[in-house]
């Protein structure tokens, strides 16, 4: 038993690879699916138990730490841990993977390779979120790109090769920049452990207690600005933030729907998570200096993405841009948390809790939306919004649940989207009123975009493509029920998630990154 708790996170990260090994020797496609599902469920249960224990232990400090020297020449260590910042992304990954597997169940083209790639992706994602040393983190960061590249290339839509290539290369460019910046940082600070860099080094489990070191002083100021923007831009590609988003529409429209669920649900959160984990603790003065600009970038991304979505004619394109809109809110909250002395600590607490809730909520709702988009495309044989109509008549249950997901994205109270948006706005309005006002205007346009979509697809006369659409099968209902349930649950009872993140919130309130 102690093996499982001593190296808990390592087990958690690598169990999916066991599933891959088993898949290699299995031939029946049904068995492959069962193995994958069982693996993801096992990982989910294990991970949730870990998180519950973590939460039970006041959820404040770093837990399940493992620190082993790896390449001591460059200070690369194998360093994992669970704390307030990565608890929620980890939970999101754990919960979303079984759903993705269920979603891919009926996909006729999905065979051993597909599901094995999904499992490898899960390992990569869990690794990214639990890693606390840059090299370690970076390995997994790059690793997350690989299975998705192949998934898009082999199982995607008509322009899949282009989309896969663009996705891979664009995000790779960002990570190259990130890598370069971190190399420079390492040169000046001599360490790559995020925790140490954050000045809240964990206590005695590593080489003695670490006082909050002032890394900012170690780096010459001109270089610090370059590093700050380099890291920010490198991560902004991943989020994505407005000007650097061109890989997103193609990737989201060409990838198979199940993969998009994963991409939008979890992978887009890597960027946000990395901003909080990597960038926030590094340069407190620069944080405060550039926070308003970052807030404007976020507001720009929010409003432009949803305005673009207004004109889009394909269902998935609309959802892709609205997904960008929602993560923009996370960046807005991040800007607030960056704010320095200008922003009160309670505002930061609100913004940070809103950020994590939005990460979770958007993961669920966006995954749900893309799932529906995939169902519609597959049944109606068209990707255009105008191809559908009168869905309410042919498939009322699907319409109802799809409507729930759409309203959750709009931000209706009672569903998860509202709580996070409220907290973010509460946090950012006092210090960045105009940016927040622009973002709120984005909320109105979001409602407009989704209502128009709903009208076109649900109401009106039944189009020829829609006639053949049958309502949800039991398997699909099983796939959707967890997502819909979570939307309501987090909308009505968000406190458990907020509690999970409270370690991070307390750190921010206590002045980390100041």
């Amino acid at each position, binding site marked *: 038993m102690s093996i499982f708790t001593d190296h808990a996170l390592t087990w958690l990260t690598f169990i999916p690879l066991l599933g891959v090994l088993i898949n290699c020797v299995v031939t029946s496609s049904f068995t492959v699916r069962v193995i994958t599902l069982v693996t993801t469920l096992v990982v989910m249960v294990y991970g949730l138990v870990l998180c519950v224990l973590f939460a039970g232990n006041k959820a404040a400090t770093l837990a399940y730490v493992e620190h082993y020297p790896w390449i001591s020449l460059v200070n690369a260590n194998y360093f994992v841990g669970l704390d307030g910042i990565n608890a929620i992304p980890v939970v999101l990954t754990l919960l979303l993977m079984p759903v993705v597997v269920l979603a891919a169940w009926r996909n006729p083209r999905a065979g051993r390779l597909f599901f094995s790639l999904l499992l490898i992706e899960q390992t990569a994602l869990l690794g990214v979120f639990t890693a606390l040393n840059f090299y370690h983190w970076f390995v997994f960061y790059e690793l997350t790109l690989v299975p998705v590249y192949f998934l898009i290339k082999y199982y995607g839509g008509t322009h899949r090769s282009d989309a896969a290539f663009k996705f891979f290369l664009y995000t790779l460019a960002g990570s190259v920049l990130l890598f370069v910046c971190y190399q420079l940082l390492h040169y000046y600070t001599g360490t790559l452990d995020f925790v140490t860099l954050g000045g809240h080094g964990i206590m005695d489990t590593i080489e003695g207690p670490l006082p909050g070191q002032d890394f900012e002083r170690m780096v010459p100021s001109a270089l610090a600005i370059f590093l700050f923007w380099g890291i920010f831009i490198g991560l902004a590609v991943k989020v994505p933030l407005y000007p650097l988003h*061109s890989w997103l529409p193609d990737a989201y429209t060409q990838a198979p729907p199940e993969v998009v669920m994963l991409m939008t649900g979890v992978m887009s959160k890597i960027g946000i998570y990395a901003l909080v984990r990597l960038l926030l603790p590094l340069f407190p003065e620069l944080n405060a200096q550039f926070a308003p600009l970052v807030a404007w970038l976020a507001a720009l991304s929010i409003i432009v993405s949803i305005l673009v979505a207004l*004109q889009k004619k394909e269902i998935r394109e609309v959802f892709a841009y609205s997904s960008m809109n929602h993560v923009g809110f996370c960046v807005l909250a991040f800007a607030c948390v960056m704010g320095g002395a200008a922003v009160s600590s309670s505002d930061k607490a609100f913004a940070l809790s809103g950020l994590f809730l939005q990460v979770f909520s958007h993961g669920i709702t966006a995954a749900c939306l893309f799932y529906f988009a995939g169902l519609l495309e597959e049944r109606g044989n068209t990707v255009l919004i105008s191809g559908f109509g009168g869905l309410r008549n042919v498939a009322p249950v699907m319409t109802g649940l799809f409507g729930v997901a759409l309203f959750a994205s709009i931000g209706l109270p009672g569903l998860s989207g509202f709580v996070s948006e409220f907290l973010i706005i509460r946090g950012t309005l006092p210090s960045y009123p105009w940016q927040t006002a622009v973002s709120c205007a984005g909320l109105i346009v979001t409602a407009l975009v989704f209502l128009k979509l709903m009208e076109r697809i649900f*109401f009106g006369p039944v189009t020829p493509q829609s006639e053949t659409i049958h309502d949800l099968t039991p398997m699909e209902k099983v796939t959707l029920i967890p997502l819909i349930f979570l939307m309501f649950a987090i909308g009505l009872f968000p*406190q458990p998630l907020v509690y999970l993140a*409270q370690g991070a919130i307390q750190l921010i309130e206590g002045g980390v990154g100041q």
Partner: protein
Amino acid sequence: MSDLCPRLFCIVALAPFLAALVSAFMRREQKKNSAILAIAGISASLVFALCGLVYVLTHGPITVGFNWIVPGANAIRLSWVLDPLSTSMAAMVSFVGLLIFIYSYAYMHDDVNVTRFFTFLSLFAGGMLTLVISNSLLLLFMAWEIVGLASYLLIGFWYHKPEAVAAARKAFITTRVGDIFFLIGIVWLYSLTGTITFLEEGRGLLEGNRLQPIAAAGLIFGLPALGWCCLLIFGGAAGKSGQIPLHVWLPDAMEGPTPVSALIHAATMVAAGVFLIARLYPVFVLVPLVLHIVAWIGVLTALLGAFLAVAQNDIKRILAYSTISQLGLMMLGLATGGPAVGMFHLMAHAFFKALLFLGAGSVIHGMAGEQNIWKMGGLRKSMPVTCLCFVVGYLALSGFPFLFSGFWSKDEILAATFAFDRTLFVLAVVVSLLTAFYMTRLVMLVFFNPSRAADGFHAHESPRLMTMPLIVLAIFSIGFGFIGTPWWNGFGKFLAGHHGAEAEHHVNYFVMVLSSLIALSGIGAGYLVYRGRGLTDPLETRLGVVYRLLAQRLYIDEMYDAVIGGGLRMISKLLNAIELAFELVLRLLSAVVTGLAWILEKAGDRYLVDGSFDRMCDGLRITGKRFLSVQRGQITETIGYGTLGVVFGCLIVWSLLK
């Protein structure tokens, strides 16, 4: 026991939600069950609301709440309050709701989707009741949005009608604009004051002089920050309550079934804005300029609504514009006279407007779907009960002196406005005149003038389930007024509750007489103009262009669509073009990189690197061949050379050894 009642008060809001949840899973065929469930739900609300009312009469206001989200050191609480305002609103909403639910069952009887209808109705009722009992701006906002959702679902209920769907969207988006202002206002207020609860053991927004110190702080363009918060919140109220410029959704909302119009767009949801301002009145009072703005917007809305109502021909549209007008009056009364005045008119209006709408529904039902008043007539004889009740509502709305509640409520508004600002008073008087006028027009054309329906068509009276609520509402339309007369203002006293004395109230006989005269002259004018008319509107010929403008609703909707809709479309297209530009940039970049790579490969790699290596290898080969030509395969030669070599070698060794 006295501790239990406040805690159980939340059932007022929860019961309809529960009913909605259960009926959401019911199948289409279970019409009767879903109706019974909905009615049971709202009856439970009514019972508990009345209990709450009694409780408040005997005890003071009390709040019950719990922590909802605790990010770090802060805590966001959700709580509900039992005080005069919340309990009286809850009682009114659930009572009117109950009557309308009963009416709906008969009205929607033939529709296929009755189950869904009652689910949405219950959802609405739950949301509305949560709104009125909430003690926190956040909970209020959340309920506000739920109510907006229910309104969307109900307006678009007949989803196969594209007009209904478009109207639903318009309603949602327009109110959403208001909601965003509201949200920003709430958040700003929260950050200014540190709390969003109304009453919270002394720390609430409405308590004592808590906000007094900051009332004049943070001037931006001459208005204190608190004033801007109030204006933003009023923006939200304007959206929901159809004040200009966000009134455009209300008339279109008439596409929904008539009970929906009655419940949501007459009695309750649209009143939510007024309720909100009444609730926050102690905050608004601190910034008098805001109250002025509210009053002016209210009176302008009232005027616009009244003018446009004169030229409409659809019975429901007339009532819709009338609602807009009355909501404006409510806002006016609220701003000039305080919550007692505004809320009194709100409640009275709820009763008689619901009555009017339900009566209109009865008329439409009896006329087999006809809604144009020019095609009706003579219904006095064929639908007597409906006619009687409708006339009661009409007289109440017009402010017929003394007997009807509308008179008393409007009198209060006029008296308060008279004391506030004379210009506003004059405008309000004009509104009252027009109200009486257009309502008389309506009643004459529908009930009294000779029938213009198709030959052989006989309208019949509606079933008992529909007429009973009408009668009840009619009784209230008359009786409710008497609890708010200037001589004995029971309602005002109740609202003022245990906090302080109400304002000194001297009876303004001038206003009372004037308003009576106005009402009577409006009715008289309407009678004279429309007596016996059947085919054309005399106003149309007399007023010409003006009439056409009014009939086309001053083209406001068209302007909005062109400016805002068109503007959005243009921006969106522009941004999409920029997206394409990004694509082009990416392709250009990749083309440049590919070109560079091609050059490097051809010139650099292939020519220089590979080429030089190849040439070296060629040289080696040629040299080798030359050396190769020495060997001719002759063994003898080989031996010969070998021997020579040995000899030389030995010579060298020998010389070395020497």
